[in-house]
């Protein structure tokens, strides 16, 4: 059952070029996709291709010079600005891309606690810290004191404690060591298995494939194809698009197997 549907979404920015002219630059164009409960959809594409903007568009937190068109539906209901405001943090949670998304002057424990919507905030925060192997004193640290890995885990924690049914994770894995990556991904898997939906944004197709059910290949502001994760195997012959194939073959171990076969 699909929870979130994106239908023909476009995002563009108003900009001033050199001289006195003003123009609009379309960054996402005619994008359609859906998130299904119980599934992880990986969105894979090069950096700068507009993946973060997609996430922000779904939540309605784009900067003010951005314009959007198209429809997004949540539980079959069209998302208006007002509905987005009600749902974010409650039904849809974001795992942002970097530490800069944490308030630099607020202790991280407090920031996790403000994300808790139901039940005791303090307990929920303690539990999630334990689960991610964050020591108790981390609670009282400021973001600038966190290591890269700790910061990621804090960011994931904020989404985990929110009780949302949809999690949009914007590159949650870079900077983590493989053990922690595995763990974070397992967490997303567990989360999906509880009947929620996860959108896992990444430029690293390899780690995304470890847990994803489907992969959306993102290029030049739109989705080229959405393929089941199983299709990413062998030579990638089951993939439809050249770009997807190229992306798949570019992985080091595939190169290796290709040569080996030939």
């Amino acid at each position, binding site marked *: 059952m699909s929870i979130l549907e994106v239908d023909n979404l476009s995002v563009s920015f108003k900009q001033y070029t050199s001289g006195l002219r003003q123009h609009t630059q379309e960054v996402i164009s005619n994008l359609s996709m859906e998130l299904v409960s119980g599934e992880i959809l990986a969105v894979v594409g090069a950096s700068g291709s507009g993946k973060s903007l997609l996430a*922000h568009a779904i*939540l309605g937190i784009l900067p003010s010079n951005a314009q959007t068109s198209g429809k997004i539906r949540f539980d079959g209901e069209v998302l208006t600005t007002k509905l987005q405001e009600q749902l974010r*943090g409650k039904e849809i949670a974001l795992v942002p891309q970097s530490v*800069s998304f*944490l308030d630099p*002057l*607020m202790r991280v424990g407090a920031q996790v606690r*403000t994300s808790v919507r139901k039940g005791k905030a303090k307990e929920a925060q303690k539990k999630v810290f334990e689960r991610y192997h964050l020591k108790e004193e981390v609670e009282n640290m400021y973001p600038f004191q966190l290591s890269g890995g700790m910061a990621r885990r804090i960011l994931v924690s904020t989404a985990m404690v929110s009780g949302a049914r949809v999690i949009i994770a914007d590159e949650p894995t870079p900077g983590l060591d493989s053990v922690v990556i595995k763990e974070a991904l397992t967490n997303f898997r567990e989360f999906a298995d509880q009947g929620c939906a996860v959108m896992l944004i990444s430029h690293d197709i390899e780690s995304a494939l470890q847990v994803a059910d489907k992969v959306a290949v993102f290029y030049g502001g739109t989705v080229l194809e959405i393929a089941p994760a199983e299709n990413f195997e062998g030579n990638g012959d089951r993939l439809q698009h050249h770009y997807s194939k190229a992306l798949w073959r570019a992985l080091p171990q595939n190169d290796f197997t290709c040569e080996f076969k030939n």
Partner: protein
Amino acid sequence: MRWRFTRNLGIFLFWKAIKMASLLVAISFLSFLLVKQSPIDPIQAYVGADMLNVSPEQRERIEEYWGLNEPIMEQFWSWGSAILSGDLGTSMIYRLPVSEVIGERFINSIALMSTAWVLSGIIGFSMGVLAAMKKDTWIDRIIKWYCYTLASTPTFWMGLLLLIVFAVWLNWFPVGMGVPAGVLAEDVNIMDRIKHLILPALTLSIIGVANIALHTRQKLIEVLSSDYVVFARARGEKGFTLFWRHGLRNIALPAITLQFAAFSELFGGAVLAEQVFSYPGLGQATVEAGLRGDVPLLLGLVLFSAIFVFVGNLIADIIYRVVDPRTRKEQSYAAK
């Protein structure tokens, strides 16, 4: 951690003190050279209208008494060493030790300046917050327009306007003088003092809000479009809670430090406001000293105003170091 922080603060203060000392020496020297090359005759300034009665011999004796015919470096040397021993000389127009004049005037001025400082800080900060929260609405436009206009407004003219409206037309306040003329200083009651304080303080506050309001607005707009506020909104925070949790926290410190760093403008404004309202503070004394050639007083005031500005900047720096966790806990846990 603790002792390390204290030690760093100590080192920081030590360097600040060295720097201040070097600046003060330079200021003293430059100011001394400047006043010495003034065409205004210090003896005439001292003697005033009786100058015609001063014979050349008398003049020579005064010059000798003040050491005016010695080489300039020697004069500077004796003036400088006197200052180091705490003697700023004697004011020619008030016929009192300079330190005494400055001390008494400072009390008046500090009442004026601190009132204006607090008022303009609070009002300016609130205006900036309001404008940023309502960015691009008519409220924001009005506040912006008002602040830019105030920034171009001559302080003394604002004082004149208030004088016309409140003292001349409405008759609520006296037209001048820090204390009623002809009344001994001891007999002046607190109400009188407050009454004379209101208009100059109002002038300074009205002008003073512009800077802090515009700065706060800019800063809050930055904060509101920052990643961490975007994320806070993504978590469903909005409106006043959002401002309280993330906005205020991130703009309060810069605003407070800015306000401390603005001691220089505050002093300059006080000079003008005091002149307009004949308020007997440091500013008025500076103008008097300049107009009537009271060299020791002028030099003393220059040094004093420099210290005043320096203290403001120092407090701003210290607040940052003590309050901001990023500088306070310089020992980072970051592994990378």
